[in-house]
């Protein structure tokens, strides 16, 4: 069936470095994607979204890139900080509901 998933379960980066978290999707008709951040003991929080008519969207220290040819999107975090440590999910609407992929746990080393 259709799915949204992440490549790596964990990612460890040095404070100040850039982080890249990847996500693959299988439905070529998908037209909207969302990235969520989930800190320990909390529910997921919206970070940034992107529609399929865009290749790139930037927020504050975050950038999402969408490659529709290979059905891949990535979340880039610039100058990663300890507060960025969390699990990151990509999510995609399917059938009127939001479907989440497997998370990537980002650890930031001081």
């Amino acid at each position, binding site marked *: 069936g259709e799915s949204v998933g992440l490549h790596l*379960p964990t990612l460890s980066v040095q404070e100040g470095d850039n982080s890249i978290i990847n996500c693959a999707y299988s439905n070529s008709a998908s037209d909207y994607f969302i990235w969520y951040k989930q800190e320990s003991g909390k529910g997921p929080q919206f970070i940034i979204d992107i529609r399929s008519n865009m290749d790139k969207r930037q927020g504050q220290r975050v950038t999402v890139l969408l490659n529709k040819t290979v059905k891949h999107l990535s979340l880039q975090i610039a100058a990663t900080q300890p507060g960025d440590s969390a699990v990151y999910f990509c999510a995609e609407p399917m059938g009127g*509901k*939001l479907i*989440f992929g497997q998370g990537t746990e980002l650890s930031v080393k001081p």
Partner: protein
Amino acid sequence: EADIYQTPRYLVIGTGKKITLECSQTMGHDKMYWYQQDPGMELHLIHYSYGVNSTEKGDLSSESTVSRIRTEHFPLTLESARPSHTSQYLCASSDWQYGYTFGSGTRLTVV
């Protein structure tokens, strides 16, 4: 500041007990959702509601039930808890299709 509230945050309960997980939102959202999540894993939709007296089962089969008698309240009930129900339960609401706001979750342990 959270506008969607879940209680309790943590619950340890014995097998066979009936439990209700509470979820309330103050945003007037019509759409509400329950997700089940194991630690570090993806979220699985188990129930959703698009308004009062409307409830539907999600993609992941669950023995829990829900009700939506008031817009702001979407409780989840397990009639007879089992160890297999041990998980984190997340409630969310939205006012447009994908603008979800999540609560902090209830971590349930059935012993």
